């Protein structure tokens, strides 16, 4: 009882829960699920952009993209490490992903069909991720909050890079402009859907708010994202594919068309354009690497054995 009271007190005081502290089982489970899903998203999220590394149209862009995809692997690593402080191992989490028992963000189940998609992912998808994640830097669980600070810093760098790609295309040849607009047309609604179902349909939200894992509702975050994008799209000279988008003076915000939540549910349930391929790719990489990981373990064990022998 004391422990529970202390936990609530810490959370209410906007202080951090640390790994050694007592915490409710449901809090632990919720965090593990959320951090793991976030880590998996970073790892699976390498694929759509990784698809363009070999074809990047200049050496500078190739270097920037390669570094970005590498950062995503790095984010995956910090986040798995944050989850590990909750008493589950990275190997277990990876297995849950491979078995399809934990999810990753549905946005990565859409294909990257042109170079402009790399820009659109940076601008819209990373942009949406930042809007979602900035509040998590104040999450009540210390290791997650600290991981998110680092992730958000890099994400905002990525977002600027994506914006810059689109800016260059939007001010380039007619073919490049068309490519940029086409990418925005395809990524806009999937990006809006990243904030999850409308508040009325969202589960877990109230409890997560109380625990200070979540701080704003899905719809609030989505609105913040829309308002931010409208302004930037103007500078880019690209059109947001929503005929009903307009400023609402009363709300002091933009009215916009909701994404197709039935489609979102389809994609979440496994029926997006690339779900099967993303998972097959990850499983194949994992399986192909088995012999290598086994060799590294065997080598390490031999070395440990030798050291003991020398010591003895």
């Amino acid at each position: 009882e004391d422990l529970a009271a202390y936990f609530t007190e810490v959370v209410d005081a906007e202080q951090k829960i640390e790994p050694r502290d007592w915490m409710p089982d449901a809090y632990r489970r919720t965090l593990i699920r959320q951090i793991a899903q976030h880590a998996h998203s970073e790892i699976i999220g390498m694929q759509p952009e990784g698809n363009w590394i070999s074809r990047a149209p200049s050496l500078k862009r190739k270097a920037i993209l390669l570094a970005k995809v590498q950062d995503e692997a790095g984010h995956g690593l910090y986040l798995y490490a944050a989850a590990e402080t909750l008493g589950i191992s990275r190997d277990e989490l990876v297995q849950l992903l491979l078995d399809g028992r934990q999810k990753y963000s549905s946005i990565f189940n859409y294909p990257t069909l042109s170079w402009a998609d790399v820009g659109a992912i940076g601008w819209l998808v990373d942009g949406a991720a930042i809007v979602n994640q900035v509040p998590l830097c104040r999450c009540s669980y210390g290791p997650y909050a600290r991981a998110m600070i680092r992730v958000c810093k890099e994400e905002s760098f990525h977002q600027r890079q994506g914006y810059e790609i689109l800016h260059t295309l939007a001010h380039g040849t007619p073919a490049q402009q068309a490519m940029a607009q086409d990418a925005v047309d395809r990524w806009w609604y999937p990006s809006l859907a990243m904030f999850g179902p409308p508040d009325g349909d969202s589960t877990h939200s109230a409890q997560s708010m109380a625990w200070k894992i979540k701080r704003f509702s899905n719809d609030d975050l989505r609105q913040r994202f829309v308002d931010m994008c409208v302004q930037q799209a103007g500078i880019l000279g690209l059109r947001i594919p929503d005929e009903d988008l307009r400023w609402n003076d009363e709300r002091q915000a933009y009215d916009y068309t909701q994404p197709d939540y039935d489609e979102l549910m389809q994609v979440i349930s496994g029926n997006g354009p690339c779900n099967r391929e993303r998972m097959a790719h990850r499983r194949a990489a994992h399986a192909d690497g088995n012999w290598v990981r086994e060799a590294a373990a065997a080598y390490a064990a031999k070395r440990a054995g030798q050291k003991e022998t020398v010591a003895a």
Partner: protein
Amino acid sequence: MNGPFDFTLALGDDALIAAQRLAEWTTRAPEMEEDIALANIALDQLGAARLLLSYAGELESAGRDEDALAYLRDDREFRNALLVELPNDDFAVTMAKLFFLAAYQLPLYSALAGCADERLAAIGAKARKESAYHLDHGALWVKRLGDGTEESHRRMQAAVDQVWPYTHELFAADPAAPVDPATVRTAFDEVVGPVLAEATLTQPDSAWAPAGGRAGVHTEHLAFLLAEMQVLHRAHPGAKW
């Protein structure tokens, strides 16, 4: 190769094609840490390629920048050694290529760091530090795989046997070059021999020494690599990215 332009171009092409192959591992490596490590090495190679190709373009004085050289030459105009264009195949083959390449690039860049051409000397000084890391990383995996499991030993030995013949081309004598590659063969041998021995691997003694890369006569693989690498750039002539 002869003269600073050909030499610089050849080194730049080695680095560029090596970067392209290494980057193919992204999202596919056996461990997440290794995904990051291979991307790092690819980024180092790409960085060196950009410096070398930019400088080659200046030496040529024909108005070609790094992208013109990377994206607008066909395979017969590339001057990389065959070793770097070979397919990645399994992880052991990739590590054999990485290890041998680093064991060549490290002494070459080190010698370059002391050469009379200031630009090349600066590039060499930067790149040799990176090569030292690449060599450590490659050597560590050669040892892990060579002295790991039976399966990994078998694969690593097969990889060394497959890649070894392509190392000879790296050291073809070129007395007119800023650094004659033939002069770094000893340093290569002194690094490679002990690592292979520690890895319980046999150093091949095959006399076969395929070559041609420095003259633009490549394997059938390079044209496919370039088709993919160049497709977007070539589809939009004159565009800025």
